[in-house]
């Protein structure tokens, strides 16, 4: 990090001034439509102000006019790289409000979908992060493997990106007869690919130079800013809602929670945030292996309520989305329409820390920092 004192001294008669530069709204490495207003002193960032709302369609207002099951497809469209998990979180929240029990097979299917979605989402994050920094090859490799997961999703739900698969009380279809076999084949296929990614990108000298010691996020700042998910773990806190606030059947599985150790630089730098996602893909594979072996037979639609009319009350329920803590705050007034749904999206909260991370860095580092916190603008703007 460069500070003001390290800038080469200039002759007294040269006039300098701050410059304001708009990065975006159309910029390939803003991952959507985001404008960063950068105040620059030379090449050094003095201030970074994110301007959001370009994709705002007020999901929360829409939801108030819908019945509870009708909201599910809307949740897909928030974090469109992790649609399954958005549905999962919504279903968990409404079920808490209704107080209903879910068949075990459904819970297994949800966990399997959720973990496949986590891998798919991390693959996009890692691939595009490489591409942002200048390594095009990993991007293509990641997308090749992600396609295989999307094909599995297509097999069960009929859609590749926006599934409408996990419903309140169940799932829309039972698994395709071939699904378990194909999913089991994917795991031994994918394990070596993680090593391939490590060889290509993780240990790459240029990549490390660009990311290690850049955008260091200390733990106390991270908690105060409400950071969650891989970004919080990269700062060194063993915090995963699958363990610390268990939902569904995650307590049945054996998996580790990786945390940032600062192997290439400082704890909580961009490289740590990147590497967390690589390690998490391995843990997801472990959960998948166990879940696919243990999945019981059963009816997946027996618990789907005919008419969803929760008693008056409220609930805040959260799940560990690939990006962090995805929370649904639902108020019911006893009718078939939700009175209020507020979504706490991890990307929205994470974007709020951009100014803190970018201050004092060079312009090129903004790309590295923004890519490492892995935002999806569909969820930021909702």
């Amino acid at each position: 990090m460069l500070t003001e004192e390290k800038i080469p001294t200039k002759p007294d008669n040269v006039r300098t001034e701050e410059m304001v530069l708009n990065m975006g709204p159309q910029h390939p490495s803003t991952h959507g439509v985001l404008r960063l207003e950068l105040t620059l002193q030379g090449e050094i960032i003095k201030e970074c102000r994110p301007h959001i709302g370009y994709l705002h369609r007020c999901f929360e207002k829409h939801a108030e006019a819908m019945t509870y099951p009708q909201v599910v497809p809307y949740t897909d469209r928030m974090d469109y790289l992790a649609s399954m998990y958005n549905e999962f979180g919504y279903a968990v929240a409404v079920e808490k409000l209704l107080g209903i029990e879910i068949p075990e097979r459904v819970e297994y299917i949800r966990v399997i979908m959720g973990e496949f979605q986590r891998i798919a989402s991390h693959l996009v994050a890692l691939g595009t992060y490489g591409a942002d920094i200048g390594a095009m090859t990993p991007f293509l490799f990641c997308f090749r493997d992600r396609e295989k997961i999307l094909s599995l999703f297509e097999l069960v739900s009929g859609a590749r990106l926006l599934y409408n698969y996990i419903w309140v009380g169940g799932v829309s279809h039972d698994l395709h007869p071939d699904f378990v076999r194909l999913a089991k084949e994917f795991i031994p296929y994918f394990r070596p690919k993680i090593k391939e990614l490590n060889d290509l990108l993780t240990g790459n000298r240029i990549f490390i130079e660009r990311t290690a010691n850049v955008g260091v996020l200390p733990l106390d700042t991270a908690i105060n800013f409400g950071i969650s998910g891989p970004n919080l773990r990269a700062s060194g806190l063993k915090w995963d809602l699958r363990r610390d606030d268990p939902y569904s059947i995650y307590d049945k599985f054996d998996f580790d929670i990786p945390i940032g150790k600062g192997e290439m630089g400082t704890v909580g730098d961009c490289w740590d945030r990147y590497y967390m996602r690589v390690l998490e893909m391995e843990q997801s594979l472990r959960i998948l292996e166990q879940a696919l072996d243990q999945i019981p037979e059963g009816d997946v639609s027996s618990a789907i309520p005919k008419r969803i009319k929760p008693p008056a009350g409220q609930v805040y329920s959260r799940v560990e989305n690939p990006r962090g803590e995805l929370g649904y705050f639902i108020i019911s007034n006893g009718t078939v329409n939700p009175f209020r749904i507020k979504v706490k999206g991890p990307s929205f909260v994470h974007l709020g820390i951009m100014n803190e991370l970018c201050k004092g860095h060079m312009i090129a580092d903004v790309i590295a920092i923004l890519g490492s916190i892995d935002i999806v603008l569909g969820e930021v703007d909702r």
Partner: protein
Amino acid sequence: MKSTEEVFEILKGRFGDAISELVTGQPAESYFSVSPKEINKICFYLRDTEELLFDNLMNLSGVDDDNGEKKTAEDGSFTTFGGTLSVFYHLESTSLKHKVTIRVSVPRETPELESVAEVWRCADWHEREAYDLIGFNFLNHPDLRRILMPYDWEAGHPLRKDYKNPEFYQGMKVPY
């Protein structure tokens, strides 16, 4: 680890009348109410006291309680008078692993409450969102601007129950 009732008792002993109305027995969660002028002081206390340590603001959401008097116009749209707007704070402690929900209600005509952005920095954007979509005035907020809607949106706050879409925005037809 403390339950909502215990936290309520601790705060009641410390702040007295600023804490009121413990609501329990709902299907999923309990909460209590806090006075809008004291909320930031109470939040500092909640964050820094050794037995509480609420270091994480999970969520902050504004709600239109829709409990005022409604006057319906000829075209079927209505305007609400009186009643309250509320902000819900969901807090948790990452070290002690307990959670609590706080509610602050303000009158619809003067929706003013203290900001907690100094206590938890993530509240900055959450409060901007609540201001933008529901129209709270967070006192002593560092940068209270619209966040999701356009900066020059003049038709009010969309998540209020009596919100009406304007016909035009900057000369453009809505809905287009």
